[in-house]
C-alpha cells in the first residue's frame, strides 16, 4: 500500500506540474501583457507594474519566471479577477464547494440509479427488460444536457411548479458561509428556519443534479451491466450455483460485490465528465458554482480568472481521481500490486 501511495503521490505532483506549466504558458498565449495576465491587475500604475514584474521575476529567464509563478500559486495567490478586481482565490473558495456539492449529489444519483439498473439488465440478459434499459441508456446518453436542463425547467418549474429553477436556495434564507457546502452550512447554522432552509435547498438541488446525473447514469448502466455479465460468467459463480446456493444468495453475496469493484475504478473517470456537464448545467440553473463563473469569465475575457479557474478545477478533478483509485485499491487488494499506474 505504501508504494501504491507513493506512486500516486508522484503522479499527482507530476500532473500538477504539467497543469501549472500549462496555465503558466496561457499567460503568454493570451493577448495582453504577460504579467498583467498573471496578476489580473489591469489598472496597475507604473510603480505597481514594476512591483509585479519584480514579484513574478519577469526580467529573469523563463525557468525563474515559472518558479516565481509557482510560488504565487502555492501561497494561494491566483491574482485578481480582471473584471471584478477581487482576488480569485476568494471566488474559488466561495464557488468551488457549490460545484463539488452539486457534482457529488449528481454522482450519487447517477450511481444509485445507474448501477442497480445495470445489474437488473445483466441478470435479465437479452430479455425485454434488458433491451428496455439499454435503449433508455442510449437515449439518455444522446440527450444534450443544455436541452434537457431547459426542458426540465419548462416542465417541472414552469409547467407543474414543483421545483425551483434557479439558484441553490431561496434568497430568503440567510445561511452563514462556513464550508461552502450548503447542506453542511445549513446544519451548522443556528437559524430558526434551519429545516425550512434544508427543505428548500433540497428542492433546489434536485433538478440540476438529476439533469447532470442522466448521462453518467447511463454510462454506469452499461458499465455495471458489462461487469455483472462478466462476473456471472466466472467459474466461482458457476461453482456457487453448483453448490446449490439460491439465485439471490449468488447475486447479493458474490456477484454484486465483485462487479462493484470493477465499477468503482470508473467513478473517477466519470467524475471528470460529470463536472464538465455540471459547468453547463450551472449556467442554465443559475447555480452559483465555479463552472458558471468560469463561463462568465470566458465571455468577459477575464484571462486571469480563466487560467486560475481551470487550474483549480482540474486540480480538484485530479484529486477525486486519485481518491477513487485509493478506494479501489482498498477494496481490491489485487490492484495494489499493479506496477503500472492504472
Amino acid at each position, binding site marked *: 500500500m505504501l508504494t501504491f501511495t507513493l506512486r500516486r503521490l508522484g503522479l499527482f505532483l507530476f500532473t500538477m506540474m504539467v497543469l501549472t506549466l500549462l496555465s503558466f504558458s496561457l499567460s503568454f498565449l493570451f493577448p495582453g501583457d504577460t504579467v498583467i495576465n498573471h496578476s489580473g491587475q489591469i489598472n496597475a500604475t507604473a510603480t505597481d507594474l514594476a512591483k509585479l514584474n519584480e514579484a513574478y521575476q519577469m526580467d529573469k529567464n523563463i525557468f525563474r519566471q515559472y518558479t516565481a509563478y509557482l510560488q504565487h500559486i502555492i501561497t494561494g495567490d491566483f491574482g485578481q479577477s480582471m473584471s471584478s478586481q477581487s482576488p480569485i482565490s476568494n471566488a474559488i473558495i466561495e464557488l468551488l464547494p457549490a460545484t463539488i456539492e452539486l457534482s457529488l449529489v449528481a454522482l450519487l444519483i447517477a450511481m444509485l440509479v445507474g448501477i442497480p439498473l445495470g445489474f437488473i439488465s445483466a441478470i435479465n440478459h437479452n430479455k425485454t427488460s434488458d433491451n428496455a434499459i439499454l435503449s433508455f441508456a442510449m437515449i439518455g446518453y444522446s440527450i444534450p444536457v443544455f436541452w434537457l436542463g431547459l426542458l426540465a425547467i419548462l416542465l417541472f418549474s414552469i409547467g407543474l411548479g414543483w421545483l425551483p429553477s434557479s439558484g441553490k436556495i431561496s*434568497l*430568503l434564507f440567510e445561511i452563514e458561509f462556513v464550508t461552502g457546502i450548503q447542506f453542511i452550512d445549513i446544519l451548522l447554522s443556528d437559524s*430558526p428556519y434551519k429545516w425550512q432552509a*434544508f427543505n428548500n435547498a433540497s428542492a433546489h438541488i434536485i433538478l440540476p443534479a438529476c439533469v447532470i446525473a442522466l448521462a453518467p447514469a447511463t454510462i454506469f448502466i452499461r458499465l455495471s451491466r458489462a461487469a455483472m455479465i462478466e462476473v456471472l460468467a466466472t467459474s466461482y459463480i458457476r461453482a456457487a450455483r453448483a453448490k446449490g446456493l439460491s439465485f439471490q444468495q449468488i447475486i447479493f453475496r458474490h456477484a*454484486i*460485490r465483485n462487479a462493484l469493484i470493477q465499477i468503482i475504478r470508473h467513478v473517477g473517470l466519470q467524475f471528470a465528465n460529470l463536472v464538465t456537464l455540471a459547468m453547463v448545467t450551472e449556467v442554465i440553473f443559475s447555480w452559483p458554482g465555479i463552472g458558471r463563473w468560469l463561463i462568465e469569465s470566458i465571455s468577459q475575457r477575464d484571462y486571469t480568472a480563466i487560467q486560475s479557474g481551470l487550474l483549480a478545477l482540474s486540480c480538484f478533478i485530479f484529486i477525486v481521481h486519485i481518491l477513487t483509485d485509493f478506494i479501489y485499491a482498498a477494496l481490491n487488494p489485487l490492484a495494489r500490486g499493479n506496477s503500472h499506474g492504472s
Partner: protein
Amino acid sequence: MAVSMMNFKFIPFLTVTALISLIMGCNEGNILSLSERSIIYCSEGSPETFNPQLSTSGTTSDASAKQLYNSLIVYKGSKNTLAPSLASSWHVTRDGKKITFYLRQDVNFHQTGYFTPTRKLNADDVLFSFNRILDKDHAFHHISGGQYSFFQSVKFSELVEKIEKINDFTIRFILKRNDSSFLANLATDYAVILSEEYGQQLTIEDKQHEIDILPIGTGPFKLQDYRVGSLIRFYRHDEYWQEKAKIEQLVYDISPSKSNRLTKLLAKECDVSSYPIAHSTIAERSDLKLESITSLNVGYFGFNTKKAPFDNKLVRQAISLAINKKALIDTIYQGQAARAKSILPETSWAYDRNTPELGYNPVRAKSLLEVAGYAQGFTMDIWAMPVQRAYNPSAVTMAKLIQADLKKIGVKVKIVTYEWSTFLRRLSMGEHQSFLLGWTADHPDPDNFFTPMLSCTSREKGSNRTFWCNKEYDELLKKALKTTNMSKRKSYYAQAMTIINEEMPLLAIAHSKRFQARGTDVKGDILENFGGISFYDVYKNNEVSSTNEITAPNKKEKVVD
C-alpha cells in the same frame, strides 16, 4: 462477508430514507411563515448607490428611495396632492419665498450592524441632507462624485438662497424667487433625509464614502445585505414612525435577464417581477397578475415651426389630423401605452379631462391642406430617433406608418435617421422639418412637461426642438409657477394645453406604461403614480389563494388593461 454486503446494500438505501424523512418530516410550525412574511422582488439591475440624491436611474431609486428613506413631504392619493411625511406641516409665506417645515418629533433612524442612532430625527438631519447638495464646501458634497443629477437639472442651488434652522424641529428654506415647483421637488424620491449623526460617525471613522453604500435612513426597511449582481436584502425597520411594514424581509433578486425574470416568476421563485415580458402568458395564468401604470413620459411627433411648410399652423394641424394614432399605439407599443391627448399624462394631477384632442380625420386634413395652399401636397422629411426608449420603442417603424398615413393626403415623406448623438446635435441646429422624439419627466410637477418641451426659453438652451414660441403660452406657465393654489395652476395648465392643441407645434402620441407582474397572493400597492415602487403596504395572503379558483373567471377581465 455478510456484514459488508449488508453495508453495500443498505447505505444508499438508508441515506435516501434519511433524506426523504428530513424533507417530508420536519414540518415545524413556522415552516411557511418565513416566505409568508417576506417578499422576493425580481429586479432588473444592480443599483450603483443607495442614495437617491445622487442618481436619477430608476434602478437606484427603486432600490432605495421609498424603501430606505422618507422625504419631508410626499404626494398622496389619486389626485397626487402634497401631504405631510417627515414634516408634519409646513407654511409658505405670502410671497412664496420662505417655506417653513415643522418636523415630526418621533422619527427613528435605522439601527443596523454598522450604526446605532442615539437620537431621533431633528432639524440637523434635514440641514445635513440638503446642505450636502447645495454647499460645495460641505464635508460630504464631493463624496461619491458630487453629482446630484436631479437637483442640478431643476437648478435647485440657483433657487435656494439658504436653509435656516429655527429650532430643533423647525427648518426654513429661503428662496431667491417664488417657484411653486419647489415643493414638488421636495416631494420627489430624490429629496430624501439622511442621518447627520451617521455622517458624523463616519467622519470620525474616516469612512465617509460608506454613507451611500451602507445607508441609514428613516424608511420602512433597512439594508441588511447587498451583493452586487446578486441580491439586496432588507429587514423591516421595527421602529418606523408610522405603522411598521407588514412584511419582515424584502429581498431583491437581481436578475438582469428578462427571460430569467419570467422563469422565476412562473416558477414562483419571485413574488413580484419588474418589467415582465410575455404579457399574454402572464395574463393567462390565474395565479399571476399583470399591473401597469402610465409613466410620466410622452412620445411625440414634432414640427420645426421655423421651417416651411410647418411655419403654417394649418399645415401642422392637417398633418396631425392625418395620423392614425390608434394604429401607431397598437403597432409600436403593442397596445402597452396610453394614447396621449396632450403632452401631460393622465396620471398627473394637473391633467384636465376636458382637454380637446385632435382626432383622426384625413378628409378634414386634406381640406385644411387646400386652405393652406398645398392642395397638390408636398414632400417633407421625418427624423426618426435611432434608439429605443420607453416612450418610443421603434421610431423608424413609427415613421414608416406615418409615411403611409400621409401618403393618403398627398404628402410624400422621406425618413431620415442618424446615429444618436449626431441626431441630437443636428436636431438642435434645426436642420429637420419634423421629428419623432419623446420626453421623460424628472418629477411629477406638470411644469416639468410644459417648460422644457415648449417654452420660448428652452428654444436655445433646453429641449424645445419645435422652435415654437408663444407669448401667451409662456405667460400662462409663469403664472402657474407663481401660485401655489392647485386648482388655479390646473386651470392655467389646461389653458396651455388648449393652446398647444390649437397651435400644434407637436402631436403627442403616447404615454408608455410601466409594467409589473406579481403572484395573486401578494396584496397591496407597489407601483407608485410616478413610476417608482414602494413595498411598504405589501403583504402576502395565502388564504386567498385557496379561493382563487372561484374568482378565477373574473380575473381575466381585471388582467386586461
